[in-house]
């Protein structure tokens, strides 16, 4: 018998615990040549703001040891552009389409969340209070409890479906941040966004990124992400979505064991655009091999005594 892969994130029933991470999977169609995005447990689309944004100047990317820095800075068509141009193309996917909601002010977050709330085929939003690549807002909301609470509460008032808050790893105490947003009404948290990093070209003596600093992702950050998922999942009752450096099914299983109910695949999509179904299949194989009937019994199943 095939192991059961379904998991619940609040009201969402995911067909499997594998989602794709915001900013790394476009909106889905970019990967249709490689596999049917509907096989995924969910898709979190690119960060969406109140207005169209051009993002940061080029260069926006630097490769680092087993990782990369990005400084895209929320380039997107704005919420209205999303609703008009993109939503019609993705609303037929037979998986949970989740919009990553970003902004510079609480008002902007509210505006975007309210508009997305009206979309039938978007069952959840992921509140991005952790983008390190914008001058205003972004990570600033996610690095202090009062502001994280403020933005979460404000959005909670206007947003009636599943509200996921994506936490920043650039904090002293991630469990405290998770508790704060749980108290403010979040239905789940995503852990982690990128670590703030920097790359320098020694030959030209210049920063590689136009913005000097950027967000670090990829396998390099996996140990930090795992630790944070573990700390957060012990601290809160709402589900944790784990991400940061997942490349293989084994990595994904580590996050589940650490306490994540689902995972997101980010940078790995760039290395292998067909990685999604491989990770789903790999989790299933692992469960069969270990004679575990239901993936839910892995969640938080780390043996620590």
């Amino acid at each position, binding site marked *: 018998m095939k192991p059961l892969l379904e998991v619940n994130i609040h009201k969402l029933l995911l067909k499997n615990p594998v989602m794709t991470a915001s*900013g*790394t*999977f*476009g909106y889905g169609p*970019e*990967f249709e*040549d*490689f596999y049917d995005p509907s096989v995924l447990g969910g898709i979190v689309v*690119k960060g969406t703001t109140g207005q169209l944004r*051009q*993002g940061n*100047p*080029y*260069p*926006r*990317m*630097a*490769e*680092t*040891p*087993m*990782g*990369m820095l*990005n400084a*895209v800075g929320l*380039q997107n068509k704005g919420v209205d552009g999303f609703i008009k141009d993109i939503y019609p193309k993705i609303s037929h996917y037979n998986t949970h389409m989740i919009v990553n909601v970003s902004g510079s002010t609480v008002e902007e977050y509210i505006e975007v969340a309210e508009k997305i709330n009206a979309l039938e085929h978007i069952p959840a939003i992921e509140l991005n209070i952790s983008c390190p690549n914008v001058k205003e807002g972004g990570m600033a909301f996610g690095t202090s409890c009062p502001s994280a609470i403020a933005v979460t509460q404000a959005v909670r008032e206007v947003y009636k479906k599943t509200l996921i808050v994506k936490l920043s790893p650039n904090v002293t105490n991630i469990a405290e941040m998770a508790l704060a947003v749980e108290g403010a009404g979040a239905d789940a948290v995503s852990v982690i966004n990128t670590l703030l990093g920097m790359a320098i070209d020694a030959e030209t003596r210049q920063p590689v990124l136009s913005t000097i600093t950027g967000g670090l992702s*990829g*396998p390099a950050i996996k140990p930090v992400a795992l630790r944070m998922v573990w700390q957060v999942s012990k601290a809160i009752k709402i589900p944790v979505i784990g991400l940061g450096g997942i490349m293989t099914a084994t990595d994904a299983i580590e996050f589940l064991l650490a306490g994540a109910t689902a995972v997101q695949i980010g*940078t790995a*999509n*760039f*290395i*292998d*655009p*067909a990685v999604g179904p491989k990770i789903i299949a790999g989790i299933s194989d692992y469960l069969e091999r270990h004679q575990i009937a239901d993936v839910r019994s892995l969640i938080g199943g780390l043996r620590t005594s």
Partner: protein
Amino acid sequence: MKKYIHDFEIIENREINEGHFVLVVKLSEPLPPVFPGQFAEVKIEGSPNTFLRRPLSIHDVDYAANTISLLVQRKGDGTTHLGTFKPGDTLNMVYPLGNQFHIGSAGEKVLLVGGGCGVAPLLYLGKILAKNGIKVTTLMGARKGDQLMEPEQYQRNGELLITTEDGSEGTKGFVIHHEIWRERNFAFDRVYTCGPDAMMKAVARLAARNNVPCQVSLEQTMACGVGACLCCVVDTTTGHRCTCTDGPVFDASELKNWID
């Protein structure tokens, strides 16, 4: 155009001059359609400092032999390691990516201008242009004569002109110093160029001065190659656009700060 992830077998690794080599890779099933100007994202296995794939232009396609060629410059760890791949080794590529050079109508006369390793996409382009009844002139620039990139290959597509910085072969100077650019000599309907940004900008300005369109092939740093990460943008008259999907080929007139 449908994109694929395929394992190719390396058939040949041909050193063509100091710092450059050509990989010929073969697919076990029939090749899908691949157009001039497109590129592949290549996985370089066994290079610990090469985390991301590397974008490389389609240098040539041989449907009869079912092979693709890549012309590669040893630049950093990744391309240097790629140079150690041997016949029989496997090369994983995501391809064909990006848009393509616009091909005009039969009877056109066009100039292809490549600097250094930038000639890579111009071989397959010239082949297709010639096949379409277009008269091809390729202008190839290099530092020295022994840094030219298998010039004989381009002669098959039409006339070949050469400039070298030290004058050891062809005209002395940069590609823009070739007499072909003089107004009385210039008799082209269209210019295609690939190479260092500074060279392409100069070429685009010369084309503009001669009132012909100029297509340029850009090399912005990429992470995904499929339009998902938005890392590879270039500033255009219509805002930031992705080099990997809206490009790599752009009309020079679309690019901001390219033609003054």
